């Protein structure tokens, strides 16, 4: 709390008051909505999760969030999108202080982007899941035995790796496993498949190259999470929110169009009138076919030297 006050004190006073008021109404409305949802039994938040704490640390993160042009998120994003991002975060039981995710600006929309940790934490809260999913990397030379589980899905029965294989460090694939209703479910991806998935989001190319192993784990977990969510019977808000959130981030269809159109709506034909200055006629150079660039007249400053008699 103290830290928060320090941050806002740096701003100008009216702006600061406005910000505090905005934060208060926002967190109030998000908190009310959450209480409403859990009251009606649509949402079951973990007992140790405090919405208030999460919202407070989220607010600090949002204050520091900028869009790709370096403008602060709160100036760019619509109020509705800020509220929705916070609601998404709270429904999924995430806390930005625990690196459960990040706030990302798309055009004028603020979104909550759950991290790998966040996803694991949430998936654990689905009724059918006992333990959180685990991702493992397959190195060249590893022995992997693949079979089919009770419902006919491919899963990893056995995986033997050696220290030597790990040291060589040639990654050939990865898989993630989770137990759902006592059935082991895996998402298995070869290196080629993982790279194809990465190519869909070329913006992160460098991160992918720099932290290949971690990103591979993340990709297979994402695949597993999608598999479970899409076949999940959990008729609760949590699964719904997670699917909607996934959709927001991974389905880029038409997004470019929406962003461009929003910009057109906000900025097109809003500028000042550009017109030829009236005094142009007076300095008419009729008939002269000469290239000259009009320069701003420099005011002549009478200097001391010029006024001296010599």
């Amino acid at each position, binding site marked *: 709390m103290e830290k928060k006050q320090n941050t806002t004190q740096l701003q100008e006073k009216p702006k600061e008051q406005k910000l505090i008021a905005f934060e208060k109404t926002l967190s109030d409305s998000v908190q009310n909505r959450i209480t409403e949802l859990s009251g009606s039994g649509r949402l079951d938040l973990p007992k140790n999760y405090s919405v208030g704490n999460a919202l407070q640390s989220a607010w600090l993160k949002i204050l520091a969030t900028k869009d790709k042009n370096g403008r602060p998120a709160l100036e760019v994003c619509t109020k509705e999108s800020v509220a929705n991002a916070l609601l998404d975060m709270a429904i999924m039981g995430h806390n930005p202080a625990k690196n459960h995710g990040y706030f990302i600006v798309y055009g004028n929309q603020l979104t909550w982007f759950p991290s790998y940790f966040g996803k694991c934490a949430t998936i654990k809260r689905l009724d059918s899941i006992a333990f959180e999913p685990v991702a493992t990397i397959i190195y060249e030379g590893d022995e992997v035995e693949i079979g089919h589980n009770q419902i006919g899905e491919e899963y990893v029965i056995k995986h033997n790796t050696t220290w030597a294989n790990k040291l060589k460090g040639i990654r050939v694939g990865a898989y993630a496993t989770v137990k759902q209703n006592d059935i082991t479910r895996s998402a298995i991806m070869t290196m080629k498949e993982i790279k194809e998935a990465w190519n869909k989001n070329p913006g992160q190319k460098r991160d992918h190259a720099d932290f290949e192993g971690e990103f591979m784990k993340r990709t297979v977990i994402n695949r597993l999470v999608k598999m479970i969510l899409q076949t999940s019977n959990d008729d609760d808000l949590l699964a719904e929110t997670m699917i909607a959130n996934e959709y927001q981030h991974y389905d880029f269809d038409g997004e470019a169009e929406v962003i461009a159109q929003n910009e057109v709506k906000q*900025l*097109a*034909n809003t500028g000042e*009138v550009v*017109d030829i200055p009236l005094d142009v006629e007076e300095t008419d*150079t009729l008939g002269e076919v000469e290239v000259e660039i009009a320069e701003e007249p420099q005011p002549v400053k009478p200097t001391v030297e010029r006024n001296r008699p010599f």
Partner: protein
Amino acid sequence: MEIIPIASSSLGNCYYISDGSSHLLIECGIRLDKIAKAIPVNLTELSGCLITHEHKDHSLSAEKLLRYCHIFASKGTLDELCIETYKYKQHAIKHNETIRIGTFVIIPFELQHDAKEPLGYLVYSTVTKEKLLFATDTFYIKPKFAGLDYIMIECNYAKEILKKNIDRGKIPKVVANRLHSSHFELENVKEFLKANDLSQCKAIYLMHLSDGNSDEARFKHEIMALTGKPVIVCQKG
């Protein structure tokens, strides 16, 4: 004012305007011999050439043209063109700063395109007292204008045609995504025309129609119906 659209497509753009005293080129994105053939004066008689941005379909013969006339473009555009010869004939201009080329007075303004520093031009002739607006390769125009006599504006594609082409697989998604934030869509052009004063307008030139995502007859008809002004669609050349 005499306006000759020489070429207008993503393969090359070039337009000639003259008020009888001064002769200007806007864009030089086609081969120089073609330009020389198409304009009614000698290359050396040109007062200058305005370039909107560095993409080759707008600047192809800039280097050769410098031998004959001066070139005007934003600093960003000139930097990207990076022509080492005739430096003194390359003039860096800024948006909202009035320049004079012969009998023309020109005010550049900002465009929205995926180029370094694209500019559009408001051109006024002190001879004919007419104003011409030139804006291409932009997905919208921020400023507004008053008392335009001629409007030369890009009308690249129509949303529905583009969508159809994406669905059919004719246009890759990546290309389409770029279009949204770099070229003028029909509806946005209409909004632009609605937002500006057209009372003095004598003609509207539609430029830079896309090959597959446009419909010349439809665009012409719709803009004419909206504005009640003569509409000329610039041909590929």
